């Protein structure tokens, strides 16, 4: 089994490219599970973070520091009664969350966690991503319509208008990044996600810094548009609780509602992945040009282990700071076990990082590299996730007309200008 | 099993085309008629792509992209007309739209 695993981790091809359907399937499952897990932890993290932003504690009771809260919530939602409103279009009502979920998860087929760590490397990867993720809006619209209720309908209308509008600016920003991939000696760019990261690798610069400030502006446009695209604060008009109760999913409850949530968070992760891939060098570690050499490689390869160590340390600090009372005993033990788990992972990573250095070691260095790729990719995505939470805690909601104005009259011209400027600069420099 | 040839695609496209035509000719709802037009255009696209495959060049695909653009334009303009019309007459039924009758 380790051989089998390591042989794949060391491969230079994605399963899709290799035609290895078994591994493709494994990947699909891993990603599905991983995304679900990530969504759950995001749920916990968002509640805790928001609480701390507002000087509250957030969930504390279910598990140590509310760590088990997502699980409890999941159980609650699964057990809840599935209500379908009386005048609703039952079939559409039923199918709507599935559409959203499908769109959100299908995207993950092409997200490159590493040069070979993707289900498949599609030739039209970015196009595929944009297309499929834009299908998500159908779920929202249809859900709002099928509920046969006013708030959801308005939410759906808003959402569809908003997402279609921001897709334009987003697409143009993406195109300017794609344009940068063609700045090589052959002059051909690529739509492949892996190809885009490779292009950044070859040009030795993340596209966010390319043609400064053009890349940066395109990135900012994308970063704004992607918040709108995922219906998150401050662009969460489709589910504005103070105006529309809960927007398009007002009439949903239980499992269907949780599917919507799952889709939303999955979509957040996927658009963040696009941003990371297009502008932030994907799986590349920072300063890969500037800080080169084996010493720096070693230092950077220690980062995953260090991160987990840090997390474990945080957990242990939590253990220490718990009140010395008997009713906290279970929690204390639970947190300690969690800490040990993290520590164990950190240890494993450390071993791999150090042992993977020497040639002919038990663990090939490619494994170490792959872990590094995945780590850096996920770290960058995690930063975006945190930003999403931060936005939500910081900014008030836009008014709808303002939102549309920003989309059409600010972002669209800017992204168009950046696109044209990128093209001109690219031609001038080549 | 018979290998899939161009003809298969053509038959599928023909079916889609005819269904589109039926939609255009029989339905009263203007929205559905517009959707039927989209069907027709898709049938054409399918033909083009199939022929492109058949001849081993990409001209058909390029044309299908043009047609896609055309379809988008048509949808935008058509729906615009529809909304304008709905605003004035409170209906989207084509047999109630006869302003052009001399």
């Amino acid at each position, binding site marked *: 089994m380790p051989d089998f695993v390591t042989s794949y981790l060391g491969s230079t091809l994605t399963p899709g490219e290799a035609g290895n359907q078994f591994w493709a399937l494994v990947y699909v499952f891993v990603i599905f599970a991983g995304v679900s897990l990530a969504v759950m932890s995001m749920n916990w993290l968002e509640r805790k973070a928001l609480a701390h932003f507002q000087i509250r504690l957030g969930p504390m009771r279910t598990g140590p520091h509310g760590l088990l809260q997502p699980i409890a919530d999941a159980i609650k939602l699964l057990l809840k009664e599935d209500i379908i409103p009386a005048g609703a279009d039952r079939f559409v009502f039923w199918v709507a969350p599935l559409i959203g979920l499908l769109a959100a998860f299908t995207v993950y087929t092409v997200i490159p966690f590493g040069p070979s760590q993707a289900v498949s490397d599609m030739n039209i990867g970015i196009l595929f991503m944009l297309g499929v993720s834009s299908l998500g809006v159908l779920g929202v619209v249809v859900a709002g319509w099928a509920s046969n209720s006013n708030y959801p309908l308005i939410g759906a209308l808003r959402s569809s208008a908003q997402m279609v509008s921001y897709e334009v600016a987003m697409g143009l920003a993406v195109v300017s990044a794609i344009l940068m991939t063609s700045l090589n000696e052959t002059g051909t760019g690529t739509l492949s996600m892996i190809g885009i990261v490779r292009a950044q690798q070859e040009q030795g610069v993340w596209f966010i810094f390319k043609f400064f400030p053009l890349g940066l502006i395109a990135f900012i446009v994308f970063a704004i548009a992607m918040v709108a695209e995922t219906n998150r604060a401050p662009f969460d008009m489709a589910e504005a609780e103070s105006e529309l109760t809960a927007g398009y999913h007002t009439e949903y409850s239980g499992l269907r509602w949780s599917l919507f949530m799952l889709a939303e968070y999955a979509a957040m992760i996927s658009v963040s992945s696009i941003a990371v891939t297009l502008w932030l060098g994907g799986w590349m570690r920072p300063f890969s040009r500037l800080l080169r050499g084996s010493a720096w490689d070693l230092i950077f390869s220690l980062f995953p282990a260090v991160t987990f160590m840090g997390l474990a340390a945080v957990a242990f600090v939590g253990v220490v700071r718990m009140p010395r009372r008997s009713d906290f005993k279970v929690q204390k033990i639970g947190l300690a076990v969690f800490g040990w788990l993290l520590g164990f992972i950190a240890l494993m990573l450390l071993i791999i990082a150090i042992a993977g250095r020497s040639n002919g070691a038990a663990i090939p260095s490619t494994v170490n590299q792959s872990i590094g790729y995945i780590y850096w990719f996920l770290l960058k995505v995690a930063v975006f996730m945190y930003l999403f939470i931060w936005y939500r805690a910081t900014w008030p909601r836009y008014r709808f007309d303002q939102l549309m104005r920003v989309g059409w009259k600010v972002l669209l011209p800017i992204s168009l200008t950046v696109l044209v400027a990128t093209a001109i600069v690219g031609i001038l420099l080549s | 099993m018979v290998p899939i040839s161009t003809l298969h695609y053509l038959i599928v496209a023909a079916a889609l085309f005819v269904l589109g035509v039926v939609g255009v*000719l029989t339905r009263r709802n203007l929205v559905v008629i517009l959707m039927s037009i989209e069907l027709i255009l898709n049938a054409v696209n399918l033909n083009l792509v199939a022929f492109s495959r058949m001849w081993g060049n990409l001209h058909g695909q390029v044309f299908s992209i043009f047609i896609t653009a055309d379809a988008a334009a048509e949808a935008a303009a058509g729906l615009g007309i529809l909304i304008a019309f709905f605003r004035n007459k409170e209906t989207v039924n*084509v*047999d109630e*739209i*006869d302003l*052009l*009758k*001399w």
Partner: protein
Amino acid sequence: MLFLNHVYLLPIVPAVGAAVMFFFGRRLRKIAIDTVCIGVIVVAFLFACVTVAEYSSFAHGTGQAFEKIVYTWLGSGDAQLASAMNGGAHQTFNADAGFLLDPLSCVWLLFVTGVGLLIHIYSTGYMAHEGGYYRFFGYMNLFMFFMLTLILANNYMMMFVGWEGVGLSSYLLIGFYFHRHSASSAANKAFIVNRIGDVGFVLGALTLFYYLGSFRFTDINALARSGRFSIGDPVLSAAALLLFVGACGKSAQLPLYVWLPDAMEGPTPVSALIHAATMVTAGVYMVARSNAIFVLAPGAMKTVAIVGALTAIFAASMALVQNDIKRVLAYSTISQLGYMFLALGVGAFAAGVFHVFTHAFFKALLFLGSGSIIQAMSGEQDMRNMGGLKDKIPTTHWTMFVGTLAIAGIFPFAGFFSKDAILWQTWTSEGGAYRILWFVGYATAMMTAFYMFRLMYLTFYSRVRMSPAIRDKVHGLSKSMTAPLVILALCSLGAGWLSWPQSLGGSARFEHFVEPVFAHEAVVLEHAGKSGQVSAGEKEAQHTDKAEYLLMILSLAAGAAGWGVAHNAYRNAGKDYAEPIAQKLPRLYGLLYNKWFVDETYDYVFTGRRKLGNVTLGALGVGEAASWFDTKIVDSAINDVGWVTRAASTLSAWFDRWIVDGLAVRGIAYLTLPFAYVARLFEWGLVQWYALIMVAGLIGFGVYYVWK
């Protein structure tokens, strides 16, 4: 040689002061303004002294010119601009920003910076309570810049820079009290009259350039002295006359003198510096500079002499009866300038220059003294309201007395020597008709003594005629004002000794110093058989005879006579004193008092500011006529053409509407109507029907195509 090599920096020094005033003056306090503006003049003066010293060691008394060309100013300098059209002759339109130092410019350099410095110092007291203090000193420094440029120029164009520039500064300073209409009018008058002269200057310079191929003094002099031109060469004569027109403008000679009396509207230090000591002598300087040309043009020389003599006596006559203290001095200045031109005209260049030199001191002194009086009298300028100031302002009194003695030509004051030299040279030049010029000069000297002592008596000695309010306010003056007076008085006394005539046992050092500049002219003139017009130094050797002593005594007598007449008439002048001329020749008095009605005539004839009945003559009249011609003839012709066009188009519009459009176009439209009724039967208006027909067509086409 350090300073000599960088002599171009000399004008820049005051320009720096002017620039500082221009940009920051408004925000500076008085002490800062004084420091900067006086400072730059002190520097300039020291610079000038050192430069002159260095020059004399450079030239060793040979009068060799020192030239420094900084860059090419006009013309590219690298190529022959005019060459293509002028038969390939080596002629480049070229004027350098170049500087030249020879004895002549040294003289001017020293007294301009020296007198300028004194007047600047005086001004700090005089202008202390005036608004626009910084502006005044900025303009003064600007004037110094342009004056030094004028002096140091090595070609006519560069000289013209200073020439126009001093005109500009003069304009600005005359108009210093710009809220007074009279001041701004006087400023305009000064500038425009000067401009007329400037045109002459420019045309003269262009003539020289075209004829001789250069603007540079050294080139021109070398050519003129080469002997290739006969005396009386017409082109050179024309050029000399044109240049003299320029000199007339700047140095206030007939007929362009009218601006100078009006220029007294400016602050008194300005009158002292610009309109007495320095700027107005620029014309003399220029003629002296161009002496090589002038000696080849005897006609022009004669003109200069005659104009100078006429101006001298004409201006003196007007000075006899003026009541404004500054106006008296202004006419006196014009008169003295006439003297200088008289000297130049008779070939006594050195004497003329020497008179400029001495005149600078005593006239500056007199003006500053009059300024002190005005200051003490709280702005009163009319001598009829003065009198008995001797004890109130003693320093002013005795310094002015020295000045008066000097201008009146009393031995041993400066004026005696210079004036005597001029008169004697006039007497000894060609003789004949030239003797008349001597009589004119002599009469002028007498008149000068009269009006100057008239001034002295009316202000200092006679009875007190001012109102009691003013009398109580009369006060002594600050050191900054009296010190320059004292220094100038000493100079007025001693400046003449520089050229103590050989006939009185002197060595005529001044003449020897400037002589090299003019020496060649003497030679030329001698060769031409005009023995009279040789420079003073040479003449000393030849003609030390009794005539000279006689003339000296005569001129002393003239001064004494003038003094005596004035003493009699004004010694006890009370409130209702009588002018002797008015009593004896009332008509002449009226004429003189109204300055021969010259200003009025000019206004009628040349400017058109006064109307002759209903008719405006002069520039304004012609301008109005031209304006009328422009609107009524030229422009209305254009408008008439427009009217004709419109008429034609109205006609064609009618044709278009009723014939082309009506008959042809609409007629055809009506013809098509019946067909339209048939065609519209095919319109259902239902979209699905149209679609159906389309499908039918498609089927038909397909059937035809498949079963063809």
